């Protein structure tokens, strides 16, 4: 918080102890996944999961890169996740701006209607969406892969809630200065929404990055498979090469962590706050 408070050392110690324990709890499976990707098969299932492999091996990674064309599927995944994220941020932020800051008839009603659609479990609409794409001739195309997910009520809702907290005075000042609505959106609102846009970027990217069933059923050819689909296709029906599977999991998770690391830099204190004063 803003004011500097004197905190006793004891308080600090308890606080840090709490933080460290909670981090151990949240990180443990991830660390185990990382270390397991370097273990030999006999070491993976033991009575006590071990943090460090007794014998380090790169076999999991070697098998992984031998089994699938990693670069190809990585490329497919990047294309899918980046295009979906870019469209999603743009479309949803635009709609959210209209819902939060522009006046038009039926605004609240339309918004309520969108919220209602969010309450229908997504699983039942999957097949109808598939049939619509079929009728539009968009099966087995990037448009069919990306478009259905590029607008999301969840995202509109999230950004709208954030934008509503941005003081109206800023916009009024800009309008008086002769800014068009697009300029206000692009040059004022988006920068002010950096933390939430970063959050949406992370959510969209990770959603698309980990998506399995949709890219599998929309894309026909194996050379269009995204990374999770390609990795899943290595496993047998009953046999699982756990070392390889965990190596695959690390390769899939690493870019997601990277995106999050980049995005969380935008959680900068006081952009909006500074704007209010100025």
């Amino acid at each position: 918080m803003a004011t500097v408070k004197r905190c006793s050392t004891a308080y600090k110690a308890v606080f840090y102890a709490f933080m460290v324990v909670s981090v151990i709890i949240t990180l443990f499976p991830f660390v185990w996944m990382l270390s397991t990707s370097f273990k030999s098969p006999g070491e993976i299932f033991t009575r006590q999961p071990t943090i460090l492999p007794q014998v380090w091996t790169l076999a999991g990674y070697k098998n992984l890169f031998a089994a699938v064309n990693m670069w190809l599927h990585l490329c497919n995944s990047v294309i899918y996740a980046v295009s979906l994220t870019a469209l999603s941020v743009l479309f949803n932020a635009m709609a959210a701006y209209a819902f939060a800051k522009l006046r038009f008839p039926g605004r609240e009603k339309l918004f309520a209607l969108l919220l209602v659609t969010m309450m229908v479990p997504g699983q039942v609409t999957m097949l109808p969406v598939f049939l619509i794409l079929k009728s539009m001739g968009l099966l087995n195309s990037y448009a069919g892969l990306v478009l259905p997910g590029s607008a999301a009520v969840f995202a509109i809702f999230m950004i709208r809630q954030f934008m509503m907290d941005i003081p109206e005075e800023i916009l009024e000042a800009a309008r008086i200065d002769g800014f068009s609505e697009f300029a206000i959106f692009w040059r004022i609102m988006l920068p002010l929404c950096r933390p939430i846009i970063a959050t949406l970027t992370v959510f969209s990217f990770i959603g698309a990055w980990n998506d399995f069933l949709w890219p599998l059923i929309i894309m026909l050819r194996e050379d269009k498979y995204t990374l999770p689909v390609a990795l899943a296709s290595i496993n047998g029906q009953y046999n699982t090469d756990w070392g390889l599977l965990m190596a695959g999991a690390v390769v899939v998770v690493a870019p997601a962590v990277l995106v999050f690391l980049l995005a969380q830099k935008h959680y900068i204190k006081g952009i909006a706050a500074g704007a209010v004063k100025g």
Partner: protein
Amino acid sequence: MTFKNTLAIAVLLFLCHPPKADAQSRQLTVWAMGAEGKLIRQAAEIFERRNPGVKIVTQAIPWTGAHEKLVTAVVGDMAPDISQMGTTWMPEFRAMNALEPLNGFISSSALDTGDFFPGARESNVHREQWYGLPWYVDTRVMFYRTDLAAQAGYNKFPEDWEEFYKFSRALKRSKNGGYAFALPTNDWQIFLMFYWQNGGELLKATPVPYQGLWPSDGQSAPLTAGKFEETIAYLKRFFDEKLAPLEGGHDTDLLTAFESGYFPVFISGPWMISELEISKPQLNGRWATAPLPAGKKRASFMGGCNLVMFKSSPRKALAWQFMEFMAGPEMQAKWYAASGDLPSSRKAWSVPSLSGNPRLASFRKELDTAKAPPQVPEWENIAGNINDAVEEAVFGKVTAQAAREKLSARIEKILVKSERQQSAAFKIALSLLLFMVPVCAVVLYLRGRRASVGGKCQPIAILFLLPAVLILAVFLFIPIVASFIASMTNWNMYGVNDWTKIVFVGLENYVGLFGDPVFLAGLRNTLVFAFIGVPVSVALSLAMALALNAQILRAKAFFRVAYFIPVITTMVAVAIIWRWLYNPEFGLFNLALERLGLPAQSWLSNRWLALPSLILMAVWKGFGYNTIIFVAALQSIPDSLYESIALDGANSRQEFWYITLPMLRNTAFFVIVMTTIGYLQFFAEPYIMTGGGPLNSTMSVVLYMYQQGFKFYNLGYASAMAYILFGLIFAFTTLQFRVQKKLERTF
């Protein structure tokens, strides 16, 4: 989105059949699953060498999504020429009219169909017509620890039921702790093997159509009276005498339990040989396989895969050539060498690598008498009901006889087909009518009494809304209306690829759901899950976000990432770790209880503990998501507010109540609404960890919907479920909005 466009798309939805891809005469597309999908390349190369000019495109489909992929490929006109197909999926795809009949090809071919194992033939032949060729087979045998058996005084594995029971008792007595036999309470495959061994029959005479099946002569029935009860009685002894765990079958890692001797005996298939050799090399020489102990006769389970040709293939002669090549004894023996999959051809078994392998001898013995489950398209649904019936009976909730009668009634109900016919004109008219009702309702709702717009209207808003709203209209709104219409039809696997088979049934699905005990259990569990999970998760997220925002915290980026990691960690890794935490034999939670002097618990297989255990896991996995949203929102609170209240001498608690919380209002509201919606759609945890068991104590609405929709292809029924859940979520969200409005007025 205008009316015209909406209509045009709706009509397209019903009428459009895109043209077929043109035939390239010498190229074949072949799909195979998982490891087979990669290895089949080797077979394809041999075939290409022998048939110059032919090109075979092989493609690996992941097992996890294979069923969905094949169904959507058929529906989307994207099916390959040939595909691998699980034996239990055959009738479904036949019902969808997707498979090419093969008798014509077989009669003019040198392929000896009599060479296949009888159980492998069963899944390919329907009313004397072949629809596929057996590719490879698997069957179930006993895996046991020879050292522990010897310690109990047995140098040879028992050969019949009674001996096996005595052996299990001796085994349990001779060791400390653990059990004698890993016998699951809800595995239809294992139950069926015992039932068949006891002389039981399942859907013995299945005339088609199923209407009028099993006349009330007291003799014909889906299940054999008496045999079912005897089988249950035999298996129940193992549970009652603690030779097998009634609780705890699910959450133990089988290989580790086999190594420790906790489970010295289990039933599994041929893949387990290499699994044991690779994962537990230290056990080599201390285990063996044996044929299943015989009851009144021998019977194991016939699994494996077939190769099928799709009706849509434009190159059927060439496709047949490849299938014939793959199913023949020569290639079958080679395939074993490449993949370890057991040949379906008896001749192929004469090669030394197969006939000389002692561990395979028990498989070879079982293959002659192994049986495939009945060839009905509704099999998956029937199998699920067998699981439930057996589980209820061994838990002692109902008598074996009552379980059989209930199961028989369920099976008859599943198999009875509606004879209803509706004309195409009637169906199209009704669909359009049903489509127009919500569309008109929405239009009226939006146009009705114009909401008073404070100040001037800004038409430019349309441009901002256009992309998102257009996409949502096409890919969300129309599918929602379509699935709502589907909830009033009998849309099932017969109708997936053939619109004419769909008929309107009114509210039948909805009425049926309220008499479906599994659905009602799912509804109850879902509510419990949300009522406990949402407050815990939101409170935890807020607390963690505040901690992350605390001024004394250094290395904020690190902690932010750490809290978000559970959200992005692969579910597979998460599941393994949580299974270990909950392991009844050596899990961390039980170790902790032990330290405290409390009794160990079966976290995931105890009826009362399973749901709370999953809630804990879900909260762990999901709280980081909301934490990040709160962190983002905390950044936007102006420092000036804190400065001014500090000047008034406020302490940090007052800061929280008077500044932080009110400023987080909009975000918190969003988080609560979204989390409630998410928790009411609870799915991933029970799907991966418990499959809804034990005794449906962790079944959720969405999991049941997924099973009905994507496993049994009762799409109409699944859609109805979605709309009941929708009603529930709608009620909750409306309530939350009301509360928020009220709160806003009070502040």
